[in-house]
């Protein structure tokens, strides 16, 4: 497209300027995509560079430090004590003592066990009365879990240690300049003020580390073990197997072990098709419904909107389970059609492989259109009226106005949403599980998967019914990779994310 010089641009009427900006945004898309890809290595470099500089900084602190600072490297809080920061000193010393005790009595043990995840699972012995009893010894699951917790405690301790060292350096410098360094009671005061974010974020972040970060880390490790139904603790041990599970999941070998890989490929393809069709069908039909309801001269706007919004309000497990039963072989839809004499044989809405796929997509419209109707209604009202005004004066037809103004504007404003809803659809558990639970099941697939299963519902089945944790973990990691690659593009494209400060 033709790019305008600044003067030319300023000479345009405001409506044209806006239009020009939309066009520019889309013309630049390919370049932005390429730019996004180039940024990844740079970001990684920056991250590791930062860590390296951090260590170098600590080295120079040791070199330039006085004996108080240097001793604090080994006895945390030492420098603080001698610089009249008693409160801080006590906390650091206490942390070090607790850490050393924990490591000595538990931590080292757990970490050592991590190497082979236990050696003896159960031992049969005779009790005092000569009866055989089972004694549970090593539990691979607990060993791994405690090991992971220990790793995180060590990371947390290193972090505290770095803070301790840096604090010493700051205090030393301040004293050299003749300023009294901050003490514990200043910390308390500052936590309600400049450092208020610490008070706000402490509990939420602790929750995220304990119940999201550690579990994810743990499951990533599980992907490298053979933890499944034949290696269930406490009766059995599981152990490290390296990349074997990934090999099973991605192998191209057609015979024997290739079945898992085949299942994975088929389900991945269906997951992507589902996400693509579900996202765009909802988007365009939802927009269409919103335009219809908001058209000038249409009455009962509120009534129509309320009826549609009902589907959002009613819990999905009620509405979707009911709808799935309505379309079952014995369901009301088949019954009514037969009573009316329109069909003689039951239509396999939910049991035919292709039919079931179409049905979940159609029923998903019933779920999704109301959301999109709400979102697009808000955006449609924000389109500057003068854009339409000038288009009408130029003689543009209704269709032309839609393709040249409404659609580009909508895509521009809701583009990020469109892509995030695509990734949300990849993980859309509720709709698929409540409607079909993955059925119809097929012998072609491994691991209890069915024709409508998405990766996320297969992950669920593998865990709950098959106890095949190792493969579930592998699928989880692969889903992450798919979503991450797509999301990288999303956040590079979204103008709202990049210019965060513009909105304030």
């Amino acid at each position, binding site marked *: 497209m033709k790019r305008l010089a600044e003067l030319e641009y300023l000479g345009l009427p405001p409506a044209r300027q806006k239009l020009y900006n939309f066009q520019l945004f889309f013309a630049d898309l390919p370049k932005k995509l390429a730019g996004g890809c180039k940024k990844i290595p740079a970001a990684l470099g920056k991250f590791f560079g930062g860590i390296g500089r951090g260590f170098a900084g600590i080295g120079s602190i040791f070199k330039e430090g006085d004996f108080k600072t240097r001793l604090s490297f080994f006895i945390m809080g030492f420098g603080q004590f001698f610089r009249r920061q008693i409160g801080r000193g006590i906390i650091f010393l206490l942390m070090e003592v607790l850490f050393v005790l924990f490591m000595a009595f538990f931590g080292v043990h757990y970490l050592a066990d991590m190497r082979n995840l236990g050696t003896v699972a159960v031992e049969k012995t005779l009790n005092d009365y000569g009866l055989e009893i089972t004694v549970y010894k090593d539990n691979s699951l607990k060993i791994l879990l405690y090991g992971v917790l220990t790793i995180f405690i060590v990371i947390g301790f290193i972090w505290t240690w770095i803070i301790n060292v840096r604090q010493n350096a700051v205090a030393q410098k301040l004293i050299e300049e003749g300023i009294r360094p901050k003490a514990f009671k200043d910390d308390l005061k500052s936590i309600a*003020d400049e450092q208020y974010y610490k008070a706000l974020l402490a509990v939420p972040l602790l*929750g995220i580390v304990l119940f999201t970060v550690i579990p994810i880390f743990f*499951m990533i490790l599980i992907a490298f073990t053979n933890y499944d139904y034949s290696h269930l603790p406490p009766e059995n041990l599981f152990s490290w197997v390296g990349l074997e599970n990934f090999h099973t999941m991605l192998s191209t070998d057609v015979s024997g072990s290739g079945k898992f890989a085949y299942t994975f490929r088929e389900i991945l393809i269906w997951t992507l098709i589902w996400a693509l069709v579900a996202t765009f069908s909802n988007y365009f039909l939802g927009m269409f419904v919103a335009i219809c309801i908001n058209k000038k001269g249409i009455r009962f706007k509120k009534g129509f909107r309320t009826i549609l919004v009902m589907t959002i309000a009613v819990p999905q497990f009620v509405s979707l389970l009911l709808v799935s039963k309505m379309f079952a072989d014995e369901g009301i839809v088949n019954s*009514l059609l037969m009573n009316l004499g329109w069909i003689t044989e039951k239509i396999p809405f939910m049991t035919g492989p292709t039919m079931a796929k179409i049905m979940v997509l159609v029923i998903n419209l019933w779920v999704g259109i109301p959301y999109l109707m709400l979102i697009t209604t808000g*955006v449609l009202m924000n389109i500057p009226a003068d854009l339409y005004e000038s288009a009408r004066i130029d003689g543009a037809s209704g269709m032309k106005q839609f393709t040249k103004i409404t659609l580009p504007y909508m895509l521009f404003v809701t583009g990020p949403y469109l892509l995030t809803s695509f990734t949300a659809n990849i993980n859309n558990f509720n709709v698929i599980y409540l409607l079909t639970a993955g059925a119809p099941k097929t012998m072609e697939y491994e691991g209890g998967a069915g024709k409508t299963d998405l990766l996320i519902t297969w992950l669920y089945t593998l865990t709950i019914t098959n106890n095949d944790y190792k493969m579930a973990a592998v699928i989880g990691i692969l889903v992450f990779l798919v979503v991450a690659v797509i999301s990288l593009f*999303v956040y590079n494209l979204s103008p709202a994310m990049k210019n965060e400060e513009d909105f304030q």
Partner: protein
Amino acid sequence: MSDNNSNKKYASKSGKERTARTLIYIFLTALSIIWLLPFIYLICQAFRGESRSMVTYVFPKKWSLENFRILFKETQFLHWYLNTLIIALFNAVLQTVIVLSVAYALSRMRFKGRKLIMNLMLVLGMFPGFLSMIATYFILKLIGLTSENAVPGLILVYAASSGMGYYIAKGFFDTIPKSLDEAARIDGASRSRVFFRIIMPMAKPIIIYTIMMAFIAPWGDFMYASLITFGHEKAYNVAVGLYRWLDKEHINNYFTVFCAGGLFVSVPVTALFMSLQRYYVEGVTGGAVKG
């Protein structure tokens, strides 16, 4: 002559408008009927007096409250309902506090590690939630918060991961001018005072939105609850409890009871949602447009 012409043009245009409008009315009415049908069906089945299995007609031959009697007298439904209600109430409080804290800190304050925290949460959000749930289950089991103690367990799990859902609230805080904070800080107010005295009173819509979503979400959660409560019927939430009634073994005896239970759960939740609809719309449109 020319006058006549333009009249004709005007008439044909308004005629076209009228057909367009009629078509739209037909379309929207059909749409409304399709959207309402499942709910009409639900109500009809819930009040059906005869046969508790699926039947081949919609409207009951005998209307009765029998299904509700069975629901409360012969099943564990009341347990499940109370479990879910308790979880929802706790979640409404805890999740709101956590989400607003995170959103405020990340929106109004600039500190080292802020970008890192935001990017980390973004990356964590890309893992399927159920993956971390498997390990969370083992952790909860270690501290004894699964099966019969699943209610506190679920409260803990929902609250602990809720910090990652700060986006919409942050988007809202971002729109409040920063000069307000700065003016108050020049007058000597601390950050915490600004948060409670200036920002919170202005954030009513987003507070209501957050409470509402936090309260409603547990009613529909099947995935996590089915794992945490596994095998312990008394600890089920409504979704897990009712789900079982539609499997092959139970459906012939429980289909209408399921509908009664579904109706009993849906009515209060729907009423709450509808009465606070305005805040919901503000929340989703704001969130979608800002990304």
